[in-house]
């Protein structure tokens, strides 16, 4: 929703910019923010704006309402009601919490004369000062967290919105919201990013929080080392004092009984004390084997969320975010091109790094051609053309779509049959490089142009449609599998 609001308003702003003088635009229109969009019936929207101060409200309601409404009506294709409000400032008397919360305490420093401040912890609403920034960085470092893994750099779509929402909730109320939080999913779906973002957010609020990020493997190594050096007691104490424990790739604990036992005790020490535990894994707890039942049940007691492979749109957004980080200006169409051809997030990052080095080292320009050559270089998985027989393809496709081979080859134009038939034609022509006429012959003497059409259609759909791509990939995998076995 956040993205939607921002997107809508940004679009409206670029539209409105043309209707005002630059001064008027930047004084009255630009500082507005959409706070809420509510649907009223089918074709009405109620949009609530937050204004920076009272002067804006009356000025806008009196003079600019109509223009803003028109722009929004054009963009949303709906009738909009606009509401303006300002951020209400709390004027309730403060309640004193705790007796000596802000008591000035002295930190030893080596300088000759140090001006001491009255307030140790300063309110968050101030701009973070340089010093605080350093404190934040050093605490990130201490916790083993990466600075760039934050919620701001995390793109959200349907495949991971649940995980994202849960992560935000945990970062706001660590120890109470969901404990433990268990995130699982395949490689490159953003498990580690989300987990680190939680830690990042907690530290940003309070740099003194004791957070520790580790991986399942590192945890194991530390325990082994401690046993060797006879320092298990110190290690136990170290782990049990953390308020927030982040363990990445917990599945590495599978089969390591004593490590599991140590983790179990750590878990039991942290959670009752109000600490938060966050775990990631490549599979759900019940599939981590062998894992002690008491650990399994503890994992399952919290919130378990799986993160799906990123969709096409999400991949595009990821490309844009990562490109921005590299200082690369990737236009939307190129980003979509890359997203349509590359599925793995890690590979996306690799391609962007390659592009970046091409551009910065060889001074090449970012053109569709350059992107194509880059993409070409990464496609190594050739489809073994000679080992797969066309009949096998047709059978596999038919199986996948739960239709009979006869129906697939037959003349019927029922929708799901047509789809399956097109996929089969695509694989035969595009992947197996079977001649168009030959393919036509396999499907009851269809014209070669029909085959070409079908093949092109599926090729385009793969770039944009999630289900088609999953279908084609699944069929390709099962074909490859059948030939290798």
């Amino acid at each position, binding site marked *: 929703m956040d993205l939607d609001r921002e997107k809508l308003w940004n679009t409206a702003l670029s539209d409105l910019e043309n209707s005002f003088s630059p001064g008027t635009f930047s004084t009255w229109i630009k500082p507005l923010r959409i706070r809420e969009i509510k649907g009223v019936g089918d074709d009405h929207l109620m949009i609530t704006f937050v204004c920076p101060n009272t*002067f804006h409200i009356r000025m806008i309601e009196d003079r600019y309402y109509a223009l803003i409404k028109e722009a929004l009506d054009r963009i949303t294709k709906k009738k909009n009601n606009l509401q303006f409000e300002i951020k209400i400032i709390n*004027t309730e008397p403060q309640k004193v919490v705790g007796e000596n919360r802000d008591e000035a305490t*002295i930190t030893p420093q080596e300088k000759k004369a140090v001006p001491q401040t009255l307030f140790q912890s300063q309110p968050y609403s101030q701009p973070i000062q340089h010093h605080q920034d350093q404190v934040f960085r050093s605490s990130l470092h201490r916790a083993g967290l990466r600075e760039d893994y934050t919620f701001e750099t995390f793109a959200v779509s349907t495949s991971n919105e649940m995980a994202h929402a849960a992560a935000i909730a945990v970062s706001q109320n660590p120890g109470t919201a969901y404990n433990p939080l268990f995130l699982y999913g395949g490689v490159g779906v953003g498990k580690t990013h989300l987990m680190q973002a939680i830690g990042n957010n907690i530290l940003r609020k309070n740099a003194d929080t004791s957070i520790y990020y580790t991986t399942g493997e590192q945890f194991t190594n530390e325990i082994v080392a401690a046993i060797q050096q006879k320092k298990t007691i110190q290690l136990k104490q170290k782990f049990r004092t953390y308020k927030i424990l982040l363990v990445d790739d917990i599945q590495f604990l599978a089969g390591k009984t004593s490590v599991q036992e140590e983790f179990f005790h750590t878990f039991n020490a942290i959670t009752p004390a109000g600490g938060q535990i966050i775990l990631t894994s490549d599979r759900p707890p019940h599939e981590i084997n062998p894992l002690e039942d008491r650990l399994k049940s503890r994992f399952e007691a919290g919130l378990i969320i799986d993160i799906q492979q990123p969709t096409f749109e999400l991949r595009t957004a990821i490309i844009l975010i990562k490109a921005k980080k590299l200082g690369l200006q990737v236009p939307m169409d190129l980003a979509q091109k890359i997203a349509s051809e590359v599925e793995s997030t890690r590979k996306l990052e690799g391609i962007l790094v390659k592009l970046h080095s091409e551009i910065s080292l060889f001074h090449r320009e970012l053109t569709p051609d350059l992107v194509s050559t880059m993409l070409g270089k990464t496609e190594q998985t050739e489809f073994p053309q000679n080992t797969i027989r066309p009949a096998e393809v047709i059978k596999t496709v038919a199986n996948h779509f739960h239709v009979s081979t006869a129906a697939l080859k037959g003349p019927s134009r029922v929708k799901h049959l047509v789809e399956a038939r097109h996929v089969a034609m695509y694989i035969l022509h595009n992947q197996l490089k079977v001649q168009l006429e030959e393919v036509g012959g396999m499907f009851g003497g269809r014209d070669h142009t029909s085959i070409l059409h079908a093949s092109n259609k599926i090729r385009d759909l793969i770039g944009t449609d999630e289900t088609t791509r999953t279908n084609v990939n699944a069929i390709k995998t099962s074909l490859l599998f059948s030939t290798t076995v």
Partner: protein
Amino acid sequence: MKIKVLQENLLRAAQDVGRGISTKPPLPILSCILLETKQGKLSLKATDLSVGIQAEVGCKVEEEGIVAVSGRTLIELLSTFSAGSMEIESQEGKMVLRSQKTMSSIQTVDSKDFPPFPERDNDGVVLSSDQFISLIERGGVAAGVDETRPVFSSMLFECSISHIAVVATDGYRLSKEVVDVASAKECIALVPAKIMREVVRIAQKQGGEVSMVVSGQLGQVFFGLKEYEIIVRLVDAEFPQYSAIVPRETQLNIQAEASELLSAAKTAMVFSKEVSGIIQMKIEKSILIISSAAATGESSVEVETKKVRGVEGEISFNGKYLIEFLSLVKTGEIEFGMNESLKPGIFTIPSQKNFYYVVMPFRVQK
């Protein structure tokens, strides 16, 4: 619009209102002063959208009207006019100012573009201008000037049913003044210190009563003086919970004459400028020694004190903070209380329990 007005009154109002104009207005209209006839008076308004200032001037209205002109030009022009009656008339696209011998005209800006001022939505409190000035000058003395840290360059108003308090801090010292005035509702408001000093300046000239309305709903605070109304955007931040750092009990207390202490502090300040303003206060028996030392020289002054409690102690802090406090008090007894040399010290006035000033000491290594 056609009016007759006294040059000296109009100039004073324009200068005061002109302080509401930002130095770099983003829009031409925000560099303007809006002149409007209102029930036999002329109202002048200017705003930079975070502060709005309005003033009223008595005049003879011959024809009602509203007009906006560049504030800077208006003030500059008016200050060259001689005192006495003058005439202002708005015509198509310009405003004509006529004095005995001078005639000038200023190009006008569309007054419809001028942002309307918010209006008070509750009654608030009324206090005398003396109470108000004392609140801001003493309660607000510790406010800093660094506007990038809003909490430390603001004043906190605490209104309760029996009294109003103003608290300010720059992170190294804290001041609080309380006056007994009944307020209709309990509320707090954080207001930028810079504009409050401006309001005090106007209050000093105007005298009379000051009304104050805090509206969280509008995010504004209104200050009404005789002929002025100042509207200020509230600071959206949380003031630190200061009560915990105010020393409640002090082991060592002394009383001394403010003027004597001030001159001693000024002597010490001569050398302390080189060492970030540090001066040292040493209390031995009934003598207070104020000293400072730098590479270029050192000084120490003894001040007679009346010991109230405790034996001896030593504390160092920024001499500037001490001088600012003493300049406010001017004459009479003051009291200083401290615990350890690294814990905050507190200055009070024994005869006026409604004010205190807390200073965080320097940590000096020998």
